[in-house]
């Protein structure tokens, strides 16, 4: 479903990703772990289509299409979702209005019919239960004045509504206390199915206790230096990154 081959990416002339290759199959959950500055967030932004990232080599195919030549919005419509590490606040735009516009834009792009207000609200309330989003939170301005936990719940709520084929969760555990982490993880687990692939990007192992990955990769200095199963995450938690990264040079 997602095929990253030898991906090289620069930001402002500086090479950040230096040949990342990764293959994610349908319904698989992969975790990418790595120390700060290893290129984790760059990888998530490049996949989601943020401007300012220069692809200098390699390819990314998603559902047998060239992902890199698509705009951010058409990537979303084709089923890519990024849960932001730092969700952006948009004062003056209600969450629910924004999501209705977004979902309908995706549906239109896919040649489906738009949902009306009633149909949309029904769907939204149903999905809100997954992450305990209150009506008030749904209707407030997008992430405006939200706590860290509320922002991350909102991200997973959006994921539930937009039903992506590939969800990239960038540091979804950062800034969460243990209760919020549980709520968010339960939401993610509920959205896990055979048709949906998930890429977890995280610094720490603790999210992976709740959302158990099928594969774990270690990113260091723009390259994946080691891949394994969930036990790799436990090994990293125990030994730290230093041992691995030293070996990788």
């Amino acid at each position: 479903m997602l095929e990253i081959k030898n991906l090289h990416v620069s930001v402002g002339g500086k090479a950040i990703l230096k040949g990342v290759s990764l293959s994610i199959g349908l319904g698989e959950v992969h975790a990418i772990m790595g120390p700060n500055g290893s290129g984790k967030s760059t990888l998530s932004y490049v996949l989601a289509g943020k401007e300012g990232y220069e692809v200098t080599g390699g390819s990314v195919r998603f559902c047998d299409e060239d992902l890199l030549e698509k705009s951010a919005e058409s990537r979303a419509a084709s089923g890519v979702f990024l849960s932001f590490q730092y969700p952006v606040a948009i004062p003056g735009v209600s969450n629910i209005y924004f999501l209705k516009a977004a979902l309908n834009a995706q549906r239109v792009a896919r040649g489906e019919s738009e949902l009306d207000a009633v149909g949309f609200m029904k769907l939204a309330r149903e999905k809100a239960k997954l992450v305990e989003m209150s009506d008030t939170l749904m209707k407030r301005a997008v992430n405006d004045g939200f706590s860290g936990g509320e922002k991350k719940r909102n991200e997973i709520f959006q994921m539930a509504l937009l039903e992506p084929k590939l969800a990239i969760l960038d540091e979804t555990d950062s800034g969460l206390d243990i209760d919020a982490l549980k709520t968010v993880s339960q939401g993610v687990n509920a959205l896990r199915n055979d048709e949906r692939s998930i890429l977890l990007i995280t610094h720490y192992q603790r999210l992976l206790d709740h959302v158990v990955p099928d594969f774990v990769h270690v990113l260091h200095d723009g390259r994946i230096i080691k891949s394994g199963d969930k036990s790799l995450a436990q090994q990293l938690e125990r030994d730290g990154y230093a041992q691995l990264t030293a070996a990788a040079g």
Partner: protein
Amino acid sequence: MNHVEDRRGANKLDGLDRAAGSLNGQPKHLTVWAESPAVESREPGWLKEVREQAGAALKVHGLPTRKSERWRLTPLKDLFAEPIQEAQVASEVAVASSVPSEQSSWLHTVDGIPTTASVLLPGVRVLKLSEALQEDRLPPSSSFGFGTGDVLSSCFSHAARREHFAALNSARFVDAWVVLVEERAVLEKPLFVQHQIVSSRPTLAYPRLLVVAGASSQFSLVETLVQETSDASGLDSIANSVSEVFLGPGAHMTHISIKAPASQTDASNDDRVRVLSHISVRQERDSKYQNTALALGGRLNRLDLDVVLAGKGAECVLKGTMHAADGDHVACYCEVDHAASDCTSREEYRSVVDGNGHVVFNGTARVHRDAQRTEAHQDNRNLLRSDRAVVHTKPHLEIDADDVRCSHGATVGSMDDEQLFYLRSRGLPDDQARALLTQAFVHEQVEHIPFEDVRLWVADRMQKSMGLMTMTFEETS
């Protein structure tokens, strides 16, 4: 900076530009008009005086030039490039009503001249100045809380600016609408004053309005100049309007003004109506004035808004929204005079600028020495949607009192890339994402409008101007 020339003094000419001596360099017909104020024999002495003083002021100062600080950014060069005529008689054209509600009370001007009115609200009298002058039984000005004598001579032209285009209006206007709101009257529906330029020849129109509100009255008034571009009316015309408002003690007024001289997208923006509008307000104690001004497009669309807080405890909130598209010049000069103590003023202006559009915001709050415990705030924010867009912003405070709370600030910026990417990453196409962010930027400017049909209608005009047609404001936060 030269602020002296901008001050209104009682019946006094500053004489700063006296060296100019005449209307040198101004179109010849303006010279003629200035020298012959449109005095009619049956007009009373006080009105003749108003006209003659205005004519004299014009003779001395002429029309502004770009040498004047207050006018240096205004594109005046081509204003009278084409021969232009004054509107003398209202055209016999059926005017398409643009008001949102069937039951509304409305007043029309056509090419600046009052035509018909339908006002069924108790507590308000609406009549033409020419009719009012014949009336024996107009309430005295004291019943509105303004001095002694009759209400017309006590108020008419006492608030308006006395120079330049406002003086031209005073010297040459044909007739005016007079709106008298009774003491303690609460008008349940807004009054709509619709100005329309319908002449097919280049016309100089002088819409004129006087509003006097008695103590503790409450009402809303919506002034519109919205040109639909389906026909050729208003080409190369100028609407030079003056509206004066007097609020008695404790009166509350919501004043919405919409100037959309080139509404809809139009290829030949060049020859659309140019708008020079003046709103002058005088507030007595504890009165409250809420102005919402929308200046949407136009090759020249300028508002001069002046508020004098004359009585203790008066409050004004001035909210403006400007939109300039390619080729447009949209400007707002607002000035609040804190002449009494314990008054509050807020100026909140936002603009959206596209193409090579040009927006000017010039806000002044002047706090007199005795105006202690004044609160005055100015906030101007500008959203540039193009690399070629230009904004001049100058929030400005002049404070002579010592016990005041004042603030002023301005921001100019483009779309936030992080917000844009967030919206697009959820599937919103770039143009929709930009429209949504623009909407978020301006929606607060109209959400306080008290009547829902008016609010929706105003939002709709704004959305059309800014290309936000797909959205409704009710769905935003």
